[in-house]
């Protein structure tokens, strides 16, 4: 019996060794490569009553989860069944999950509550002829642009953007949100400085931190608290005057691309 046991163990070890040889592999294993960010079809990013967000599921066994306003981790994530409906402003992060692949980075969708529409906008400086958007009211038409700078909802300036915004009557404005594009490879940077003038004597000045990320394309925005009753608002948005040392256009001016000014 001892001999039998010995033979059995020897067989097991033998098969173990021979099998291990055939299992040596250089092939990519589960969880080593990351999923690409999921694509999300959004009905609008400016909410009038509600908007819908629907992931494209074009891969077998792909699940998409989302988080709202910076909550992290699976426990605060919700699995998207078909469509996400949102009635409130917020930042939604969608991630793809799949048994074979590492979870994706997040696709960020920012939703904005529809703002108060000014009566009139008068431009003191002009957008580039090539990137003049849908006309003078592009920035107050309640339509956001895509990540592509050729999208007709972008208004592109290679100089400071100056405009006067008029409201039909004295109106309490809580804040102004300015949406812009970041695409440094296309020489498009965030604003360098924003100044608001209102009620003859008041002004607000805001400097935007310099961009350090080189490999990025992103929709971003800055929300400027106002909290005053105003009739007329003068807005100056300054483009970056000198591109940083790491950029191919070092020392030259950057483009400023804005898609919407939202008055809350």
């Amino acid at each position: 019996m001892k001999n039998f046991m010995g033979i059995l163990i020897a067989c097991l070890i033998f098969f173990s060794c021979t099998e291990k040889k055939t299992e040596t592999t250089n092939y990519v294993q589960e969880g080593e490569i990351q999923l690409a960010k999921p694509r999300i079809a959004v009905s609008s990013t400016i909410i009038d009553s509600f908007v819908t967000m629907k992931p494209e599921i074009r891969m077998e066994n792909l699940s998409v989860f989302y988080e709202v306003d910076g909550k992290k981790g699976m426990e605060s994530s919700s699995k998207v069944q078909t469509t996400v409906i949102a009635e409130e402003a917020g930042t939604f992060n969608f991630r793809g999950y799949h048994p074979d692949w590492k979870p994706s980075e997040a696709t960020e969708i920012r939703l904005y509550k529809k703002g108060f529409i000014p009566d009139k906008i008068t431009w003191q400086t002009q957008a580039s002829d090539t990137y003049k958007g849908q006309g003078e009211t592009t920035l107050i038409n309640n339509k956001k642009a895509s990540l592509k700078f050729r999208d007709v909802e972008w208004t592109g300036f290679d100089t400071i953007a100056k405009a006067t915004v008029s409201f039909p009557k004295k109106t309490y404005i809580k804040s102004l949100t300015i949406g812009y594009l970041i695409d440094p490879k296309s020489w498009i940077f965030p604003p360098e400085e924003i100044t608001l003038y209102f009620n003859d004597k008041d002004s607000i000045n805001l400097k935007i931190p310099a961009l350090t990320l080189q490999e990025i394309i992103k929709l971003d925005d800055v929300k400027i608290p106002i909290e005053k009753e105003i009739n007329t608002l003068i807005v100056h948005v300054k483009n970056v005057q000198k591109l940083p040392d790491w950029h191919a256009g070092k020392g030259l001016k950057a483009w400023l691309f804005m898609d919407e000014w939202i008055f809350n």
Partner: protein
Amino acid sequence: MDRRKFLKQSSLVTAGLLVTPSLSSAFSLGANNDVIVGHNSHTYKIDLSWGNLNPSKTPVNDCHEMAQDSKGRIVLLTNHTKNNVIIYDKSGKLLETWGTDYPGAHGLTLVKENGADFLLITDYERHQIIKTTIDGKVVFTIDYPADTGKYNSKGEFKPTETAVTENGDIYVADGYGNQHIIHYNHKGELQNIFGGRGTEDGQFLNAHGICYDNRDVQNPSLLVSARELNVLKRFDLKGNFIESFNVPGALICRPVIHKKDIYFAVLRSKNAVNSDSGFILIMNEKNEVVSCPGATSPSYQNNELSELYQTVRLFQHPHDVCIDDDENMYVAQWNSGKTYPIKLTRV
């Protein structure tokens, strides 16, 4: 020991072996969790270590194109002038290198003449096509086609690819230049020019790749990728437009015909946020997309191919594919951090 006791003890021993990590794989025949990419008839396992070399001795910049020679060796063209041509065996072992004079080495076509292998290299920085022996001796060069009247200077001519017919005629795609296809005979004498920049049927935006399609022996033709348009176009050998195939979302590099199928590296997905969003595309003999390793599963609605895009971050900027005689695929990548090719093993 009675039989019951023996079974109990032997099963304990076996269980012990199974849970010992170093031995447990003896029975885990399916323990490898190799991931599979691709769809339908064309699926692959991924080997990222194939062909990796010491970059201080055998460096690469962009790996532009690859071909398999008559000996079964895999020939890689890079624009690194320490070793523009790197020759591997199919296992990824380095066999030899040559070439220091091709700073814009881009297109690589293997030509077989009377039992010998030759290479056609397009160099968009030298603005030339260079024919060499398989071991690197220059046979002849073709300069920019001044006689056509379509070029003001050699700088406008930035050839990206060649295709060669059975009689030795050479077709050159000027994919980074004025977007013409230039036809030469086997001696390098100008025969014809067609195409040009534009969006009409017979024109291109980035005529990046060309190949000779003799799958229908009675009606041989040329396939040209119009990369920025996401279209593959077919011409007869005189340069007359025949038909086109839309591949929405796919910036296709050169078409590579292997047996009845056409393979493409796709540089990037048209509407992706990140530019390093490439994948592989495979068409069957009916010119239908059947598999897209690294991308969405191909699907047709009302005979229109749905937009394709990257789903896994496997490839960065795939630039060419080579299919070997075992049906395995080698993927050369542009602007991928000086990485060596990726091998896809057909499942």
